[in-house]
């Protein structure tokens, strides 16, 4: 290698952090024969399930009393079924020794990292549990709602990604969104939620109602909002219509 090369400050690498999705095989019994058989069954059900799939071997769930075992043999079993061991997750002394002997990286046992994060002072409060799935109760309709059809979203929002024909009726305990022309009837907040709203891409409705307060086509047609993209809400027992 020449002198010039050694002095060159141009970086030859970059360090990047990343979240790698990796399969973890958590061993709960030290029984390599059964493992071999059960892996074979899994692969038979879904051929091609594992193809040189990177793997972390989780040994931290093994009962402490379980006899020591052959890490080399365990890796061989995994490899036979298409799983390539990247690292071992363990804290047991004899396993750490075995992994070191094979020059295999060692990861802390599962749960250990979470605890470490909790202890870190810089860390803000752990992310709260995902909020109650309010969205799970909203109903999404992707095909046109035709005259004579009625759709009700109980306990949530109704989202329509298609035109709503004259003679069709949309009902929701929550909001109604129509990404298309609204030519039929839309009744939001049918159980009395006055904070509910109606959104549509083109207001051509026969009727719009929020918590029982409504306007019919004859009223709507006179407004400059007719045929436009609007947001309809309720305040002081009056329907407010705003252009979007």
């Amino acid at each position: 290698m020449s002198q010039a090369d050694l002095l060159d400050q141009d970086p030859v690498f970059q360090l990047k952090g990343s979240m790698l999705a990796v399969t973890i095989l958590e061993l709960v019994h030290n029984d390599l024969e059964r493992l071999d058989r059960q892996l074979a069954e899994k692969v038979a059900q879904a051929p091609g399930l594992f193809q040189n799939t990177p793997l972390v071997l989780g040994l931290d769930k093994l009962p402490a009393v379980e006899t020591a075992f052959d890490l080399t043999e365990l890796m061989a079993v995994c490899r036979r079924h298409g799983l390539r061991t990247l690292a071992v997750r363990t804290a047991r002394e004899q396993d750490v020794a075995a992994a070191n002997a094979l020059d295999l990286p060692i990861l802390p046992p599962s749960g250990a990292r979470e605890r470490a994060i909790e202890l870190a002072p810089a860390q803000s409060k752990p992310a709260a549990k995902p909020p109650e799935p309010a969205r799970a109760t909203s109903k999404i309709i992707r095909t046109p709602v035709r005259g004579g059809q009625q759709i009700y979203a109980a306990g949530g929002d109704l989202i329509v990604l298609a035109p709503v024909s004259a003679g069709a009726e949309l009902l929701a305990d929550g909001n109604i969104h129509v990404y298309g022309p609204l030519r039929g009837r839309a009744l939001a907040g049918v159980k009395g939620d006055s904070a509910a709203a109606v959104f549509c891409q083109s207001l051509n409705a026969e009727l719009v109602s929020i918590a029982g307060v409504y306007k019919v086509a004859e009223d709507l047609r006179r407004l400059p909002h007719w045929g436009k993209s609007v947001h309809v809400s309720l305040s002081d027992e009056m329907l407010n219509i705003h252009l979007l």
Partner: protein
Amino acid sequence: MAKILVVTSGKGGVGKTTTSAAIGTGLAMRGYKTVIVDFDVGLRNLDLIMGCERRVVYDFVNVINGEASLNQALIKDKRIENLSILAASQTRDKDALTTEGVEKVLDELRQNFDYIVCDSPAGIEKGAYLAMYFADEAIVVTNPEVSSVRDSDRMLGLLASKSRRAEKGEESVKEHLLLTRYNPERVIKGEMLSVTDVEEILAIRLLGVIPESQAVLKASNQGIPVILDDISDAGQAYSDAVDRLLGKDVAHRFLEVQKKGLLQRFFGGRE
């Protein structure tokens, strides 16, 4: 695999039977083994339009009731080789059609035909329901007027929710819009909806536009499907529609007011 095609509309008198006869004939002329089935029990007229009314011995209901075999009831068209007709009964009431009966007959027809064209009666009652229930594809016949568009819209709702495909959660019935009795002059005067208006309201693929034409009445009086009148505007428009149904990309014609021919301008022309 045989395809079941329903010609439907909701509204009566829009041109369903005219269309069933024309499209069925067009498919057969292109080499597909085709049968046109009249579901309008009590008001049969497909056989009249096809010019085979005198050859009807057994009908659809006879086959359902086991009074005749399908072979006995099928009428082979005299002009077109691959074409057959299954007539409706003139005497029975609509309840003569049952879901199981219709399914049995359609299953048997599937064995021997490429296309089964079901001519639906008007309305959204039993006969119309059974005509569309088993369909793979639907031609929704619509006239350019508000009430017809409304009825077609309702029918599209039924196809999307009450057909067998919808009930079984299979791929939905393929929908085609056929605008018939289209009169560009009246569209310009604002007396009729335009193609764009109707397409926008129904939001389905446009299979064709059939102009209002003297040729239709003339053909039906003679018992000849209008598609066989290949110099007429309506005949050509139906021909294009059949090509599009088979996946060909054909430009739409007869959408604009026709320029008057030289002779018409000299002798018959207004203005």
